């Protein structure tokens, strides 16, 4: 076990993948000499060379499109998109090509591409640097989508994502990059908990609280605060956003009867809607209350002076927990 930051844990996972598979190749803007704007790829170009860790020209569509070509040729590209808001020039290649080629070729051509995207807010950045675009991708058939919440998972799951023969969108919570945690680098990703599985990170019996990425920490803090008020919250780290591990969620909701889901992304058409509906379908008769969503607003990510309002905070999550429990809350007296 070693103490390391989130960013370092990904770096070490990338290093292992580069060591273990000569077909793994990293591509992106400023990932080589600079080591990425968040230093996640620090030192990798020096150790693996310019042909394995490639500083590309400034063109996201081209990065993604050439990753497709490299995958055709048997490579396993790991693409870094510098910030969430810059994935859109590559959107066409991801949605129309990366996601569909396996289906189109009836399985003949694999697209083992990993797209790493630092996402989410909370770092006081200007426009386009704090977005949560995951729902565009969870809505796109053919893509696997995961998000990590802690250094150990980041280390293990990046290796699992790279090893996957399907394309994986890998969402990294940028505001947690500097958070430290214990990482066991000897864990074999092949036998570790699959990246498709959710994980119960705090056990509880009154409410199930589902979070992913940056908000897992906030959700865990909320559970501690709720315990002070005598409420027992079970926190689940979703980890895989597509497909969602509904079996784990269902088991929890059958026990608690109440569901709260939180994400930074806007509410409408978001992942919370999918989770709430699917859980309602699967265990309607176990639910004691309607599922509750605590999310960002349906607005473009706001300028930094207002971002603390947009981001689900500990108190907003607790307010959602109160709603699920029928305790007094900010919407008491309103219908639904």
């Amino acid at each position: 076990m070693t103490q390391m930051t989130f960013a370092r844990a990904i770096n070490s996972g990338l290093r292992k993948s580069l060591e273990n598979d000569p077909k793994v190749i990293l591509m992106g803007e400023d990932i080589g000499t600079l080591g990425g704007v968040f230093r996640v790829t620090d030192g990798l170009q020096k150790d693996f060379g310019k042909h394995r860790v490639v500083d590309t020209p400034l063109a996201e569509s081209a990065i993604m499109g050439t990753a497709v070509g490299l995958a055709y040729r048997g490579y396993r590209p790991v693409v870094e998109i510098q910030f969430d808001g810059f994935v859109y020039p590559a959107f066409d290649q991801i949605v129309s090509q990366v996601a569909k080629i396996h289906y189109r070729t009836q399985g003949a051509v694999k697209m083992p591409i990993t797209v790493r995207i630092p996402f989410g807010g909370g770092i006081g950045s200007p426009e386009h640097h704090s977005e949560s675009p995951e729902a565009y991708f969870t809505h796109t058939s053919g893509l696997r989508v995961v998000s990590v919440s802690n250094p150990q998972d980041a280390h293990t799951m990046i290796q699992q994502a790279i090893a996957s023969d399907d394309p994986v969108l890998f969402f990294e919570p940028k505001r947690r990059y500097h958070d430290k945690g214990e990482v066991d680098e000897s864990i074999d990703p092949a036998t570790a908990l699959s990246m498709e599985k959710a994980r119960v990170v705090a056990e509880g019996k009154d409410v199930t609280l589902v979070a992913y990425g940056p908000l897992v920490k906030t959700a865990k803090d909320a559970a501690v605060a709720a315990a002070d008020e005598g409420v027992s919250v079970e926190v689940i780290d979703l980890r895989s956003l597509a497909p969602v591990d509904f079996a784990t969620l269902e088991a929890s909701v059958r026990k608690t009867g109440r569901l709260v889901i939180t994400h930074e992304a806007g509410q409408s058409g978001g992942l919370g809607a999918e989770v709430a509906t699917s859980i309602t379908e699967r265990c309607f008769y176990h639910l004691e209350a309607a599922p509750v969503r605590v999310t960002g607003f349906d607005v473009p990510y706001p300028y930094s002076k207002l971002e603390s309002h947009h981001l689900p905070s500990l108190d907003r999550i607790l307010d959602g927990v109160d709603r699920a429990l029928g305790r007094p809350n900010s919407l008491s007296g309103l219908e639904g």
Partner: protein
Amino acid sequence: MFTDELGQGGIPAGGPGDSAGHHGGAGESLVQLITPGGERVSHPQYDAWVQDVSDEQLGFLYEDLVVIRRIDTEATALQRQGELGLWPPLLGQEAAQIGSARSLRDDDFVFSSYRENGVAYCRGVDLADIVKVWRGNASAGWDPYTVNMATPQIIIGAQTLHATGYAMGIQNDGADSVAITYFGDGATSEGDVNEAMVFAASFQSPVVFFCSNNHWAISEPVRLQSHIRIADRAAGFGIPSIRVDGNDVLAVMAATREALERARHGGGPTFIEAVTYRMGPHTTADDPTRYRDANELEDWAAKDPIARVKGLLERKGLLTGQFEARVAAKADAVARELRAGCITMPDPEPLDIFKHVYSTPNSWLDRQEDHYSRYLASFGDPAGAHSEEGAR
């Protein structure tokens, strides 16, 4: 005089991307009217474009250069003091911004990147509004129509298409104004920029592509973006281009005036490559010592855009104590106004977050706003209501 001293020279040959565009075409030469030493050198084609620039006007150009450098220094200081979240310095690129922006008419329209804050100053943007977005008080600092300049674009290259479309509108309207778009060397790799050139050439739209080649795109050197000189690319689109000494305010002015005149009179787009250098970090969050050589910085310090105009004024006997005092006083006043405007800027109200998403009411959002205002009201101390640690 044609000179190559500002070229992408001295770059080692190597694998793909390591051989910096040294190849042929018009780009072999660089238009320069003032040498780094401050000598006015004549140019057969471009002298005519700045013949009318009087000594007095030269003095004002100098003042502009000094003032925007001061804006830049002050904004950088404000960022260091925690008053701004981020700032993209323009240090070293003053002449490219002043020479081009001072060539524009009021009814021309600018679509720039985040770095053209000196251009914004020339357009008459309020000083505090220039830093508003970097303070995090708004997504954009000003109303584009009041100064005929769109607010800075962060998505690399996107603005080149906007300028081209705006120019298509000018064309349809039968007007003689021009759209000008500013972007970096890195931006030329984006599809948007290339597609903008296709449209502009196809429709012969009145748009000027102003590429500030400052040699770096964050940590990536220009040779990674272009195997040939950037200006030479334009020919492939059927767009005339010029490679100009971007640290020479007069040469930039001449080149921009020529391009604007061509556009105004139905001659279509022009591509200007202003060869300059980013003397500072990419932004205040960047550490360029990780990727570039200090020697390079020294070479470019010797080509400083302000020093050479100062040298020219001196040669002309115009650099009097009185003149220098006037310029210094102006720079001081601007810096004071910028700082005061920045630190006294009112913070946005929480519910501003819901404003202007749509032009007419939206039922989804109205409901969210209603719920959030109830939520805020449920706190005795609303300040705690939105901290990550919580107030409960």
